[in-house]
């Protein structure tokens, strides 16, 4: 069953057309990755899906419902969790409060408490630092927090935007093991990444995006072997 279906999506920033008509879909339980170099439009797409960027043309349907142009805070309530580019944790609040805020749209206190314990289990370092201010965490810990915060809303679809951004290779590996675990638990994920090798390895399907257009698509394994992926990054 298709969970997310995007048709001909265009987004403009002033004079620049960041997305030039993107179409893609994510099925229930799938991990789909979108890879491409910097400035290709990956994050813009995520922001459009998450209700943070203004859509100029095209449509976004989530669970069969047209959600084009709805606001960011409404997306969460529909079941789209967003771990944004640059992490955007609430630096002046504790790790625990960040997670509480992740569950802002929920009212089931018991469920929230259970989930919090669950994610402290998955991210033990967050548990250790639960009373620390999020701004004092390292980059990797902030990334884990951003993912956990998005999960706290009990999303049906998780948007992961560049989780490896600016992280040391060892930490990147940790982030991907978390993604793998979420996948095993059946979470539907749309992952935007520069780290093509890892991203393709965890993905069921993948799209390559270059300057606002999708140039390749296929299963993760297919693209992993495709020379064109490599050249999209390092030049022909």
């Amino acid at each position, binding site marked *: 069953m298709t969970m997310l279906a995007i048709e001909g999506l265009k987004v403009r920033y002033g004079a620049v057309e960041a997305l030039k008509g993107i179409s893609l879909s994510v099925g229930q339980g799938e991990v789909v990755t979108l890879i491409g170099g910097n400035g290709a439009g990956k994050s813009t797409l995520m922001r459009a899906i998450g209700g943070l960027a203004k859509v100029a043309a095209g449509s976004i349907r989530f669970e069969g419902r047209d959600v084009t142009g709805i606001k960011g805070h409404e997306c969460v309530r529909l079941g789209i969790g967003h771990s944004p580019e640059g992490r955007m944790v609430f630096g002046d609040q504790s790790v625990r409060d960040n997670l509480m805020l992740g569950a802002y749209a929920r009212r089931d206190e018991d469920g929230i408490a259970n989930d919090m314990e669950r994610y402290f289990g998955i991210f033990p370092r967050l548990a250790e630092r639960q009373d620390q201010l999020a701004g004092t965490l390292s980059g990797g810990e902030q990334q884990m927090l951003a993912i956990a915060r998005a999960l706290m809303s009990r999303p049906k679809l998780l948007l992961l935007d560049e989780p490896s951004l600016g992280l040391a290779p060892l930490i990147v590996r940790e982030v991907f093991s978390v993604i793998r675990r979420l996948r095993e638990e059946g979470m539907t994920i749309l992952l935007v990444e520069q780290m093509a090798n890892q991203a393709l390895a965890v993905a069921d399907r993948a799209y390559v995006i270059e300057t606002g257009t999708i140039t390749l698509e296929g299963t993760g394994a297919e693209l992993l072997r495709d020379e064109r992926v490599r050249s999209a*990054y390092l*030049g022909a």
Partner: protein
Amino acid sequence: MPALAHAIGVAVLVAALALVPYLGFNDFYLQILFTIGVNYLAAAGLNVLVGYAGQKSLGHAGLFAVGAYIAAIANIEWGLSPWLSLVLACGFGAIFGLVIAMPSVRVSGPSLAMVTIGFGIVVEKIATEWTDIFKGQAGFYGIGAPSIAGTSFTNLHWVWFVGALCIATHLMLRSLLAGRYGRAFLAVQMAEPAAQSVGISVVRAKTLAFVISAVTCALAGAVVAQQNQYFNSDFITFNLSIFLLVVVIFGGSGSLYGPLFGAVILTLLDAWLARWPALQHFTYGALLLFSLYLMPNGIAGAVSGLAARWRRTAPALPDVVGRSVLSAASAAPASGEILIVKDLYKAYGGIVPVRNVSFAITAGKVHALIGPNGAGKTTLLNLLSGHVAPDGGSIRFEGRETVGFPAHRVAGLGIARTFQNLKLFGDLSALDNVLLGAHLHIETGFAAALLGLPSSRQVEARARADALALLADLGLGERAHEPAKSLPYGLQRRLEIARALASQPKLLLLDEPAAGLNPQETHELGEVIRRIQQAGVTVLLIEHHMDLVMGISQHVLVLDYGALIAEGRPEAIRRDPKVVTAYLGADEDVAA
């Protein structure tokens, strides 16, 4: 406004002033004319501060008071002539302008408003409460007024006198603002980091704007005190500060004619509504609340918006032929290491975008700085250009340590830059953007610029010609007079490079110059960078378009996770396993 139309306008104004005696105005109307003039004087200078340098002041009543009290005290207590008192009032205005600028240029936003309000209130309280010196509410009586050939001024003379002052002020400000000073003010208002990058000292520009506004405000105060022959502390209120600001903003800040519109309309409105004080205040409230919303650029903005619909002026062509920086035959190609970076370190909280980076830049070569998103490249560039101060390490440019230099001084040494998120001076023309790039090379004295002396005009004309030549050289010649923000994106990117080149740099830092460009534009950019190199400029560029990087650079530096992980020739870098891993991720995970 074209020179001819301007000359006609001034002439019409002079003629109108000459005709005043034949219009049968009574003293009430003459007083209104006088008040329009005074309000214009105060607002004209304040407009330089608010509209050009972009600084709000809510305390200019204090400067008005400085002028008025000096006019009174110099004449009554010190026994100086009214003319001398008037000059002295302007001088003291300038000094107090400096005094208020000192704290003001260090703060921005609400704190700036606070400092200026505080200044206004301190002056008001001192005037009210230090009655020994300032006579409080009782005030000074019998303030001497200027006279010519023994004839004391009648109300008609006062109108003429103020009219003359207004015209002189207008002509001087017009001359000043048309050149490098006016551009520098606007640059500071539109994009401070970009202004610094072309060598403008933000502090000095703002200070100068404060002083100019202080002088005209003090002059207005002095003239009022002398015409009244009386001045007391009731004149100076917070409301006067607000009123002066409203004159500027309602009239149209940033337009040379805004203060004129504001002074005429608000003075007349004020006189007309004086019969209904409650309505008068309501009107001010409504003007403040809604005029900004309905006319963001004031009356002048609305008028010029209408005028632009039916008027298209062809810009005058320069009568000198300029020389493009790019076509300049490269001096003996420099060699050796022009820039040496050692152990550079910068941290933000738990994030360390630059950790102990060391490298050297060789003169005359094109260097590329690459690395995945978030690797710390832009932070590194900001450290090099002086826009961000490092926490540790050293940067030596041509043997000179630049750590601790503010960005405008780094620019002065010959390091120019562009910005990842374009920082053009959007409302200014492409030509003005390039002229701002050449700011440090346009050497015009303040006095020469104010008086519009031939020397300053020549320097300006020469600079314009050179700037036009550079624009033409880069294929922007056709669009030199269009506002930067209306250019297509690709040309905006190129204009930013032109601006940086106009400063005749030794080292040019380009932050993602190809971002958002299509393949054709990217290709052209490569050509431009090659020409820059041929002109003898050393280049360091951050870029993601690998084809471009590999095609034009002779040396590649790879930054990952804040650290330099590789450097060398492009072919070697492309095969370096560490680089491949940084970009594509670790290979061992693929097997997993």
